[in-house]
């Protein structure tokens, strides 16, 4: 009896491990292809056949000003639009939570529209507006567009945090002599911080890899995803793989740091 049971547990263990292995393989195989290919010594299109190991693409990458420029554009747009949408979204969420006004539920519902409509529709509408009011397409329109689609996500995140917010701590703060602005910065903001950070992270991610909307409003400015899309026509160049690998490493480092709580200075809470 006992032997039989032990045998069965061993079998279940093997099955579990196998399952996990398959899932992780499924998730990480495509990513690993990029990493591997970024060190492929091949020089002929479509850059797929393995011709031996090299780090030359990483060196070449830093000569490819066009690619680096597009990456710089993407970072600028992501940082600026994240900053703006986080500020606007947070104030919006707090305002909509604290103050009652007519038609509030309608405004609440309207928030979902930019999220659920196809990006292509949002892209076209933004393009139409920008041409109508005559804003030259470029960095500015890209940033405005990214702010537009990021705001609802920030609001959703902050609002989720607000749902459990105890309004009496704001009252306690004012009771103790803090005016409204001091209360916001000393109490409301720090308590909402995790929600705000989550919203900001989401906005940042959305901005970095947006293609469809950026495609409509970019003018001559190339963002990194747009640039990659173009180059795909002739196979993914290994220097694109190299940059992607670097981005991947940066992301992994960030995730590991947050997960292990190193960036979380108040982890005691």
């Amino acid at each position, binding site marked *: 009896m006992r032997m039989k049971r032990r045998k069965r547990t061993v079998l279940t263990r093997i099955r579990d491990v196998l399952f996990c292995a398959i899932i992780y393989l499924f998730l990480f195989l495509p990513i690993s292809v990029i990493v591997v290919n970024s060190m492929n010594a091949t020089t002929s299109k479509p850059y797929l056949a393995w011709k031996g190991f090299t780090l030359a693409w990483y060196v070449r990458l830093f000569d490819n000003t066009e690619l680096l420029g597009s990456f710089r554009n993407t970072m600028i747009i992501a940082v600026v639009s994240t900053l703006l949408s986080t500020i606007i979204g947070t104030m919006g969420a707090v305002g909509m939570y604290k103050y009652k006004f007519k038609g509030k539920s309608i405004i609440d519902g309207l928030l979902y529209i930019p999220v659920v409509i196809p990006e292509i529709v949002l892209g076209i509408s933004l393009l139409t507006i920008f041409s109508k009011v005559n804003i030259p397409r470029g960095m500015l329109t890209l940033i405005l567009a990214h702010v537009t689609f990021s705001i609802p996500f920030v609001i959703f995140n902050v609002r989720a945090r607000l749902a459990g917010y105890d309004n*009496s701590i704001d*009252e*306690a*703060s004012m009771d103790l002599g803090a005016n409204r602005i001091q209360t916001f910065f000393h109490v409301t903001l720090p308590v909402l911080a995790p929600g705000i950070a989550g919203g900001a992270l989401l906005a940042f991610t959305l901005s970095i890899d947006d293609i469809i909307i950026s495609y409509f409003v970019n003018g001559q400015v190339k963002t990194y995803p747009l640039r990659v899309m173009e180059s795909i026509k002739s196979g993914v160049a290994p220097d694109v793989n190299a940059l992607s690998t670097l981005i991947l490493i940066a992301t992994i480092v960030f995730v590991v740091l947050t997960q292990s709580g190193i960036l979380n200075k108040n982890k005691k*809470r």
Partner: protein
Amino acid sequence: MGYIVELENVDKIYGENHVVKSLNLKVEEGEFLTLLGSSGCGKTTTLRMIAGFEEPTNGNIRVEGEAIEDKEPYERDVNTVFQSYALFPHMTIYDNIAYGLKMKKVPKDEVQERVLHMMDLVQLGGFEKRYPSQLSGGQKQRVAIARALINRPKVLLLDEPLGALDLKLRKQMQLELKRLQKKLNITFIYVTHDQEEALTMSDRIAIMHDGILDQLGTPTEIYEKPATRFVATFIGETNIFDGAVADVKDGQVQVTIENGIISAKDFMSKSGQYVTISVRPEKMKFRDTPTTDFTIPAVVKDYVYVGSIIKCVVELPNGNEIRIERLAGQELPELGTTIYPYWDMEDAVVIHGQEQEMLRAMDSIQFS
């Protein structure tokens, strides 16, 4: 002694809901005043108007003789202990308590000295670095009290501060609060719906009922001379008799109630008036025969033992039950016998002007 807080004809109306009805209340400096009343009678609303979180619909509120309508909560020399504690979850206990001083830009050294002193006072020494989530309910309560006291307010408002604590801790905190209040000599306005708490802690009690201040007085006054039917039934146990004055003579009234005649000492009643008579169970007496002043028979139904006290339930002919209370060992009638309850004239309280309440009480009688 001057009045530190004065409410003058204060009304609060939420939409259709008249929550506080022309409230007049004068709070003396240094006293422990309790707002007592059942749930939803407007106690919290009253406190919030004093603190500045709600605006009165009508009327004036003054602190130290100065109108405060136009002052924001952070401009008022009044601090609040919230029922839910409302501690700042992202700050340590030290920072929670220091918050008020930091907002007032008190120098750092002084902040530290005062915070540590306050923590000692509420027996929280050594908890500086903890976060609120790492404290027990009683400890959180102490932090909330310390935080509200650190600014040395003229008035401290406490909204059911002990509501969430278990009985033992409650009793202990009641004593500590009272001790703190005496020691710091700060005016406390304390909200509770626990009558025992109110009776043991307060210098004066204000009893609210449906947004109306029914009675303001010392615990003894409230217990021995209830001004309304509600106060009589809300504070302690009592026997209530509704009836019409039949005869008045020599400061004594005879009142006809459903089952016969009862009497009490009273100089204010006129013949034909409706009055309510309240008699505490421990003041009830009984004998075997009726007298001209007390003609109601009653049948002994039941005994209830509550610690060292025996409660005897007797039933009147109309089915109403009344209670007689004695210390264990004292003489009581036998079960099933008929007795004639009575009392010393001065032990009964005659309450006037309660027709509305009487009608309401009658409505709730179930006819079988």
